[in-house]
């Protein structure tokens, strides 16, 4: 679906490369996330993938097309939600969607249905000028979905959303991916990436040191330990760590289990954030 090989990019007039020969492949229906600190080149990568920046070297193929030569036909097949959800503020939500819908010649979605899906149908006839950031973010996703895109590009899709709306958007994104839409998202938000992405790529200084599924990363790079919290004789909390390997025959572990004082048991997995720091030697923000 998306095949990128040896992609390098240098902004005109700039003396150094922003992307230094990156490679990645994204399969149909996959949710693929780019994670990286500010200035790593996430937006640059997305802008190349959507055909806005043309002067790259290497090969970028999306939907079987080399992006360098892709024209307006390409835009019939992709959907893009930029980080800043901008609209015609004097038009209503539904008018904005109708306007953007009129730009496509292929099959499109009914704007009202999209608004319903993100819980905005009650605000369809209100001017966007009065919308909150969260409402605009939801409308932004609707706009990107208008043309039933085969590939969906989302920049920070859950930023500025409360947990309920963030979950709603994540559910929609997952549903689209199940229906076969390929989804590429960029984010600083590790937990959103952890919950949504089939695979993530760490992008640092224009290189990709690691691509894997969040689950594999967390399990593979976490220290394989079990932490047990229990109450001691005085009734205060204490914790003890045990090696996960051979834990079934560890006498100290078994004694603690049968003592009846155990409050919690957790494996200690690394969070995506910790892994990121470990791999790249850098924080995310």
């Amino acid at each position, binding site marked *: 679906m998306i095949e990128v090989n040896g992609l390098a990019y240098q902004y005109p007039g700039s003396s150094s490369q922003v992307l230094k020969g990156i490679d990645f492949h994204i399969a149909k229906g996959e949710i693929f996330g780019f994670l990286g600190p500010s200035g790593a080149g996430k937006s640059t990568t997305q802008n190349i993938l959507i055909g806005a920046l043309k002067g790259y070297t290497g090969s970028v193929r999306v939907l079987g097309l080399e992006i360098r030569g892709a024209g*307006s036909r390409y835009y019939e097949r992709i959907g893009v939600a930029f980080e800043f959800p901008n609209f015609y503020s004097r038009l209503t939500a539904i008018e904005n969607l109708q306007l953007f819908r009129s730009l496509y010649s292929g099959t499109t979605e009914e704007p009202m249905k999209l608004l319903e899906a993100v819980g905005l149908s009650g605000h369809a006839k209100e001017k966007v000028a009065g919308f909150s950031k969260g409402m605009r973010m939801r409308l932004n996703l609707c706009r990107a979905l208008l043309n039933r895109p085969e590939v969906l590009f989302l920049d920070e899709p859950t930023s500025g959303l409360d947990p309920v709306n963030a979950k709603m958007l994540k559910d929609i994104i997952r549903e689209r991916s199940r229906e076969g839409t390929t989804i590429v998202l960029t984010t600083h938000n590790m937990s959103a990436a952890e919950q949504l992405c089939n695979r993530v790529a760490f992008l640092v200084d224009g290189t990709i040191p690691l691509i894997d599924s969040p689950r594999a990363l967390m399990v593979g790079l976490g220290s394989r330990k079990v932490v047990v919290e229990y109450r001691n004789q005085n009734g205060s909390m204490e914790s003890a760590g045990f090696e996960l390997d051979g834990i079934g025959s560890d006498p100290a572990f078994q004694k603690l289990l049968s003592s009846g004082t155990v409050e919690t048991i957790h494996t200690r997995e690394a969070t995506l954030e910790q892994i990121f720091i470990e791999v790249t030697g850098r924080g995310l923000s």
Partner: protein
Amino acid sequence: MPGAPIFFYDIKLQVRHGFYTAYGLVCGIYILLLYVMPASMRETVNVLLTFSDPSALGFFFIGGLVLLERGQGIYDSLFVTPYRLEQYLISKTLSLTLLSVLSAVLIHVSVFGFTAGAGVLAAGTAFTSVFFTLLGLGVAVKSRSVNGFFFLSSFYSLPFMLPLLSYGGFIGAERWLLGWLPTWGSLVLLKSAFEPTAAGMLIQACLVLAFWSVLAFWWARRQFARYVLAAVGEGIQ
């Protein structure tokens, strides 16, 4: 043609931003002005008003629209759709031209009735509006603010006002001096609504306006690609 309905949204947008109200007001004032002045001056003043209407208003209104769309950060999302720059330019230009022609005809007809000259007046207004809208668009995409736009606009539009200086007498020797300017063509067409004009003059007027309109389209497209499309994805908060 995909993108054709955008024309109607462009008009809707102009209505929402009060363009039609503003033009309505201006028309009202112009009509009143024409009624109260001595009848002998009406024709000349009608030509000058009709000239200033698309050339000045069209120019500033497109500037306003571009600064507004840019300020609202619309371009990023607009140009990751199949919408092409040429369609955008055509839709913007024609929608504003429609407004100019409507108001020019309204003013003329309210004062002089349905004269035979109304047609050529409408044509002159349309041509002038197309040229100045594209010129204003090209200037606006370069400007970072309203003040910047006003500053730049005097540079770009003043040379085109030269034929006004000799208004009245220019149909003589000035034809060869100023006859290559689009606004010379505008004045010839508008004036011909009131007086018989040689076919050669009319043809020259149309040719020179058509030539400058094509040039303005090409220039506006280049400016837009350079200042707007190159910045897609940079984001405006």
